[in-house]
């Protein structure tokens, strides 16, 4: 390293006002320049496609040993998109990590010094991560569907079948909304462990706890939990108590908007 003193160039440093578009560009550079981002997104893609292949092959191979009840609930579309459960783990963890990683390393102080109005950072991170997730997961769901049907062979179905496209796009939409929710949880909770625990507590644990409620309460509450609302959105053959796909989407969007509002309030209000 050179220790020579160089005068800072005072002339012609081109500087422009902070704008939402510039903050998005900055966040895009940040997202691309961490290897963990690429690796985790790759894990989500592999989970979608590899599981379609594995489940398709296994189902076909064991078809003759399946009991009638199992065959009755079998749905080739949902079978090929089973990777959504694994992919949501990767997408959720990365969404929290994109923010908690900044708090853990102190990067957030640099981020908020450059954008002291703060909220543009939340919108940029949530928007970018949603866009990246939607594009990647739409392609992955489509490939998973095709791969899954191929390996299900005679038990598979086609893109032209009812619900096929809704399930593919619904899966991508569900994972995208989970991505935004994860970013909101990251900003609200700020620690990696806490953020991930809270997110998956809501997504995976709460539906199980809900089973302990009296059964006539369950029908009025459980379908509105984010995971079950998401199921209604992307399952070709949803649970009988589930909401309609459109209603599932609406409920999930409301959850995400509430999480974002809470995150925005806390980000604006708390000391960094």
């Amino acid at each position: 390293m050179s220790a020579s003193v160089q005068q800072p160039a005072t002339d012609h440093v081109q500087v422009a006002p902070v704008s939402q578009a510039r903050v998005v560009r900055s966040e895009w550079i940040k997202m691309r320049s961490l290897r963990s981002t690429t690796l985790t997104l790759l894990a989500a893609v592999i989970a979608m496609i590899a599981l379609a292949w594995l489940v398709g092959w296994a189902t076909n191979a064991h078809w003759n040993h399946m009991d009638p009840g199992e065959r009755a609930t079998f749905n080739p579309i949902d079978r090929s998109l089973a990777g959504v459960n694994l992919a949501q783990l990767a997408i959720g963890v990365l969404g929290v990590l994109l923010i908690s990683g900044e708090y853990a390393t102190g990067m957030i102080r640099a981020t908020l010094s450059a954008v002291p109005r703060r909220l543009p950072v939340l919108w940029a991170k949530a928007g970018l991560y949603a866009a990246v997730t939607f594009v990647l997961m739409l392609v992955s769901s489509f490939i998973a569907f095709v791969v899954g049907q191929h390996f299900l062979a005679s038990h598979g179905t086609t893109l032209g079948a009812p619900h096929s496209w809704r399930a593919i796009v619904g899966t991508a939409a569900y994972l995208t909304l989970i991505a935004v929710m994860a970013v909101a949880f990251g900003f609200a909770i700020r620690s990696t462990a806490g953020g991930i625990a809270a997110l998956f507590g809501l997504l995976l644990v709460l539906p199980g706890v809900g089973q302990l409620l009296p059964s006539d309460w369950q029908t009025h509450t459980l379908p509105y939990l984010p995971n079950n609302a998401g199921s209604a959105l992307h399952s070709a053959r949803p649970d009988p108590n589930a909401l309609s796909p459109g209603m599932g989407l609406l409920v999930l969007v409301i959850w995400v908007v509430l999480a974002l509002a809470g995150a925005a309030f806390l980000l604006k209000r708390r000391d960094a």
Partner: protein
Amino acid sequence: MIEAVGLTKKYGDKVAVRDLTFRIRPGIVTGFLGPNGAGKSTTMRLILGLDAPTAGSVTVDGLPYAAHPMPLKVVGAVLEARAVHTSRSAYNHLKALAATHGIPDSRVADVIDMVGLHEVARKRAGGFSLGMGQRLGLASALLADPSTLILDEPVNGLDPEGIRWIRDLLKALAAEGRTVFVSSHLMSEMALTAEHVIVVGRGRLMADMPMADLIARASTNVVTVRSPQLADLAAALAGPDVTITGADGRIDVAGLSPAQIGDTARDLGISLHELTPKQASLEEAFMDMTRDEIEFHAASAAPVEEAGSPT
């Protein structure tokens, strides 16, 4: 120009900064001194809007920091705690910050060269030494060519060459008409760098004066004298306003200048082996000023934490 008026920050019931009012002028380096927990880091976080004041306000160039459309052009800051993602390269870190203000990549390359990080710019910032981390912090601070620089303990972890480099750089930046506000616990370092000084103790303003005045104010004017005829000299120097202490061929004289003592010795034909004015160091001046606060601090059952890391 940084202006604080009645600036107060409480974390819970602990007061980190209490009713600070000061004005930091452009064109000179202003030092910010105080023992640990005095509220230096908190004050800097308040200036940058990272923390919100409990009461009072602080502005940079007439506006709260967050109200400026180009904040990095107004203030470049190097806070004590590192503010870099450890897994990202220095180059990408600076590029991401530059993008928020539409600063071109050529400027990123310029500041990397300016702080001497060229060889390691593509490496993970997590592997940087403390000194390299400080240089990277400085590179981000200089990115938008700001009119004000705020540095929290900038010489921490630098080797002597690096310390001299920072000192010269800060003076050069101030000479260009910028506002330079630097905290340090190294009083001797401040004496060489800062022209003006603000002293805080337990979140309170203790002094706001030129550095020379701070040293002079606590100066005790003691002169150490050695001579083979010490007893004779001591007798000749004695007077109503003069205090003489010491033995073993050496006395400390308070109340007379070295010139007066030397002239007296010459008049009596007494030879002098030593005549040393003991200038109060900045450390001593600072200790004098904050002694009460520190004692109170030590006796307090609930010591105030170093307020820079309230989490």
